């Protein structure tokens, strides 16, 4: 790993350290909040990673997450089980990405993937409120969830005993322990994704399909099947992300609750240059920015006062700078966005 690639990681660690040094209690609270805020971003970012590495550009992450959040919250409310909610969330996002839109439009009918993504976002934004209002009559909300209808924090072993130990205590008991299961799932997805993409035959083919589908086709592997598989994995991950939003981060579905997270995940994906480990740090950075903006509406840095609006816009500004290629150029998969037409 070159120094340029680990720049985000260094920045993230530096922010955390400086924060802990200035105000340890606030830092613990803020980083804890950042971990929770980054979880949906990380899951959606990895979802986009699979899809885009296979050559299917996905600006519909937002809509898929929103759909999943809605189906998850509805199922969790109706069954009283967060796990069934999770399944429903995955099903919702999967249905949206596969059957209906993304697969058909961008793979089978070789349509414009970007336009399909735009359509997915609107479809989710409209359908969730339409169906939600009809089912629950709360103006597009679902009734709030409680008890087993939500994913609740779990305490890791020894969290209680270690909490008194300096340095390790606050980090282990305060940050690592006491998150919901989906946070751990999200973090576990990072090494898993790395392994799948770079150490398995499936991963090699997936990446090849995103760079040069013709060569994969020549080798006798179906481009269509691989891309469908990638879009399906994307659906599952956005499903978990949406389910976490509705049943972990908050208690129930609210209209437009993704609030641009799908696009921040997309930004993080570019920031991470389509690599899993960098995705972890990019989403951590964006989660930190959100947490800081929430904690300090006016961040006084001594020299300047940074308004929260600037913090909110910072992920997008950083991504544009990265895209402009002034600080380490981001090069997308070569065949991204192009439908594959088999030669006859």
């Amino acid at each position, binding site marked *: 790993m070159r120094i340029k690639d680990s720049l985000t990681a260094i920045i993230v660690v530096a922010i955390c350290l400086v924060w802990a040094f200035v105000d340890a209690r606030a830092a613990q609270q803020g980083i804890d909040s950042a971990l929770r805020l980054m979880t949906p971003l990380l899951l959606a970012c990895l979802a986009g990673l699979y899809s885009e590495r296979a050559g299917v550009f996905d600006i519909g992450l937002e809509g898929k997450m929103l759909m999943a959040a809605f189906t998850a919250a509805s199922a969790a409310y109706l069954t009283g089980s967060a796990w069934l909610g999770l399944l429903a969330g995955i099903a919702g996002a999967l249905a949206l990405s596969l059957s209906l839109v993304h697969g058909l439009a961008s793979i089978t009918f070789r349509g414009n993937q970007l336009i399909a993504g735009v359509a997915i976002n609107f479809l989710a*934004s409209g359908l969730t409120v339409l169906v939600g209002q009809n089912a629950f009559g709360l103006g597009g909300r679902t009734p709030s969830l409680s008890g087993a209808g939500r994913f609740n924090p779990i305490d890791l072993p020894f969290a209680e005993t270690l909490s008194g130990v300096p340095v390790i205590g606050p980090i282990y008991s305060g940050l690592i322990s006491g998150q919901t299961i989906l946070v751990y799932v999200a973090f576990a997805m990072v090494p898993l994704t790395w392994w799948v993409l770079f150490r398995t035959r499936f991963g090699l083919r997936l990446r090849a399909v995103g760079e040069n589908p013709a060569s994969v086709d020549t080798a006798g592997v179906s481009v269509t099947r691989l891309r469908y598989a990638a879009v399906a994995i994307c659906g599952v991950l956005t499903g978990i992300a949406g389910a976490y939003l509705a049943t972990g981060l908050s208690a129930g579905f609210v209209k437009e609750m993704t609030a641009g997270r799908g696009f921040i995940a997309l930004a993080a994906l570019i920031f991470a240059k389509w690599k899993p480990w960098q995705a972890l740090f990019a989403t951590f950075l964006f989660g930190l920015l959100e947490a800081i903006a929430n904690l300090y509406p006016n961040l006084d840095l001594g020299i300047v006062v940074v*308004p929260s609006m600037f913090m*909110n816009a910072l992920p997008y500004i950083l991504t544009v700078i990265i895209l402009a290629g002034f600080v380490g150029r981001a090069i997308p998969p070569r065949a991204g966005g192009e439908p594959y037409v088999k030669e006859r």
Partner: protein
Amino acid sequence: MDKMPKWADVILTPLISLVLAMAISALVILAIGESPWEAMKTMVQGALGSSYGWGFTLYYATNFIFTGLAVMVAYHASLFNIGGEGQAAMGGLGVALALLYIPLPHWALALPVAMVGAAILGAAWAFIPAILQAKRGSHIVITTIMFNFIAAAALNYVLVRLLRPVGSMDPASARFPEATNLPSLSDAFASIGIEWGRNTPANVTFFIALLACLLVWLLIWRTRMGYEIRALGKSEPGAVYAGISPVRITVIAMLISGGLAGMMAINNVMGEAERLVLNAVEGAGFIGIAVALMGRNHPFGVLLAALLFGFLYQGGGELALWTSIPRELIIVIQALVILFTGALDNMVRMPLERLFLRLRRKEVAE
């Protein structure tokens, strides 16, 4: 040889897409236990049944004409500008700054000034994505999405911290001077003795939108610049071979596109709200995508599609008022229109092409 006649391409495919979108929407309405026929009747009655309904329909349509033209111009250079939302928001800022800080005695004078302000800020907001696409190859779709969010944050800051009058809690600018308020269409009708569309926001901007359609048509099909834009859109290597600079044309097409999106602000900010409020665009920038796709990237098509969406918007509002179907039905219809006319175009087109080929073969055989 074309696979199918031109009229089929221009009229039949968007029409079939629209019918498909409507059919699925009808199924959705059925699924939530309402009658699609009643819903349709309520929408037509509410949007077109009275001059009041028309007043709103035309107001919405005016917004969508501008954003639709914006998407269309960029599309001819094969640039997909999803930044209409941010560009229109910035155009609103341009209008507000012009009207609040330049003393203008009459609306006829204020209108051109506000138009210039709106166009400049809208175009400026499209400039950075354009130059990054042209010079650095950064994907314009991603940068324009990012710029939508940056615009929202910037406007939020400007409204809350800078433009908000002292003592006001509302994140909005002060009211524009009385003299700069645009005459509404109902005023215009009243002056010739006809009572039409009282208390509706439709205003003279509608005529500017019609003029914009004409000018865009002239630009794209009757000028050298338009030819260069279309040439670049068809084939970049071809354009370069013909001595067209892709950097220059990319930037110019995006500036025009951003300027048009920004000009929407004279309708909603200057004509309707008469002050700058938070989230004044209300998604019109995105509807421009549906309008341009539906209108087959032709100004006349954009005009028709904008009227259709104006009808859907006003009808959707009425629907929410009189039935238990929420407004969001319109977003579903909009999504389906984008889906069928944009992404699933081939699904509609391929069987049609096959049909026409078979018909033609039969003719030849006979």
